[in-house]
């Protein structure tokens, strides 16, 4: 067994979550109260606070063509549903749950209308070996590989890896146990590795 240099061993890296979009609990409560009263400025503020994450999640789960439609549906549900929002979870968690549910429902409806097939050629393109260790086209290949995954795997990868949410938050959003969330993430990453082929540094 040959020893490998210390710096070539893949090491753990804690997620650096994207900046939280939800303010403090009291800020959330004030914003929710103002939106319930129908104050236009508060509604616009809430939209701008969450628009990137809602649109980004929808885009990566349902794909670019339907993302705007789904994001619109989510925000309409958010504003219409704020009256019944009980505050059991954080506002952001509730909105992400609506986003994931709307996206998965949209895919289910679309799936009934037309089956989306990923051709072998496109999978081969995804798995093209990187020319350099820092593959400049990796981001676009990852985006394309995401679209080839089953929707459930897509959702957990987007929530945990792209958006940097914790397993506890992901479990709340997906309404499953933390253990289920972890095992789904493990399987989703394994499937992505299969689709993308070797992308890591070789030593």
């Amino acid at each position: 067994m040959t020893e490998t240099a210390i710096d070539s061993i893949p090491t753990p890296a804690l997620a650096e979550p994207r900046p939280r979009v939800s303010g403090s609990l009291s800020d959330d409560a004030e914003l929710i109260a103002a939106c319930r009263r129908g104050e236009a400025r508060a509604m616009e503020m809430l939209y701008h606070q969450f628009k990137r994450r809602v649109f980004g999640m929808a885009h990566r789960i349902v794909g670019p063509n339907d993302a705007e439609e789904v994001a619109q549906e989510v925000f309409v549900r958010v504003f219409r549903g704020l009256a019944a929002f009980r505050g059991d979870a954080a506002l952001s968690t509730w909105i992400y749950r609506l986003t994931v549910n709307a996206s998965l429902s949209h895919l289910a409806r679309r799936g009934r209308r037309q089956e989306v097939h990923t051709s072998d050629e496109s999978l081969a393109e995804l798995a093209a070996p990187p020319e350099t260790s820092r593959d400049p086209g990796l981001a676009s290949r990852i985006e394309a590989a995401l679209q080839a995954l089953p929707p459930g795997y897509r959702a957990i990868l987007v929530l945990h890896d792209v958006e940097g949410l914790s397993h506890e938050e992901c479990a709340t959003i997906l309404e499953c146990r933390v253990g289920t969330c972890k095992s789904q993430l493990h399987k989703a990453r394994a499937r992505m590795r299969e689709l993308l082929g070797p992308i890591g540094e070789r030593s």
Partner: protein
Amino acid sequence: MTCDDVRAKLTAYLDGELEDDRGSAIRGHLRGCDACRHMAADEAALRDGLRSLPPLDPPNALWAGIQRRLAAEEVADSDRPAWRRALARFAARWRPLAPQLALGSAALAVAVVVLAVHHRVGTIDEPQVAIAPPVLPKVAPPAPPIAPAPTIDGDVTAELADDAANRTASYRQAAEELVSTCMTARASWTDDRKAVFDAKLAGFRKSAATANGRARDKVYRDMRSYLQGVAIRDEVTANDRRLAGTRGLP
């Protein structure tokens, strides 16, 4: 540690979820196993690649589209009847509790069935049942033929019997007062009307004599209602006659 052990824990290891000793064992394996190290390198690159995907900006038209949809929903709200909006509010408020409510309803239904069956069994096999079926308190024993047992302070049964007797007496008194009022008016009635009234009154008296307790109270209440109607009708008729006389009408 085998390759399978390492691969099963790779995601948790790379996400920093393993404690030191287990992470150390995985790192030790990766140093000596090219296949696992390459797999770990791929997964680490994938993890980093996913984390560094850029945020996506929605198109500018999104907000306008949301506002249009909300406006359309509000117009639909105003066209909807108030009761349907109230129903929707009620449903929205209680929907999160639906599972608990369903469970509670099911438990209540089971409890009702169990009690009903238990009560039925108790009625059929009364001597064999250990727990006696619930007995309603007996009230108003009519004129006991023997002297009642001496009551002590706080004897609830005796108090209830006294209350029931007083209640019956007050119903009878009210009815009898109305009888005397109606008998005064009866003098001016036609023979047919007198016959109808007498028959009705005799019927009430007979029923009161044969009934006991609450049944007798009910007879007196019905009798009182009938007599009130008669008295009022008679009063109205007399008033009409007075008015007709005043105005010179027939």
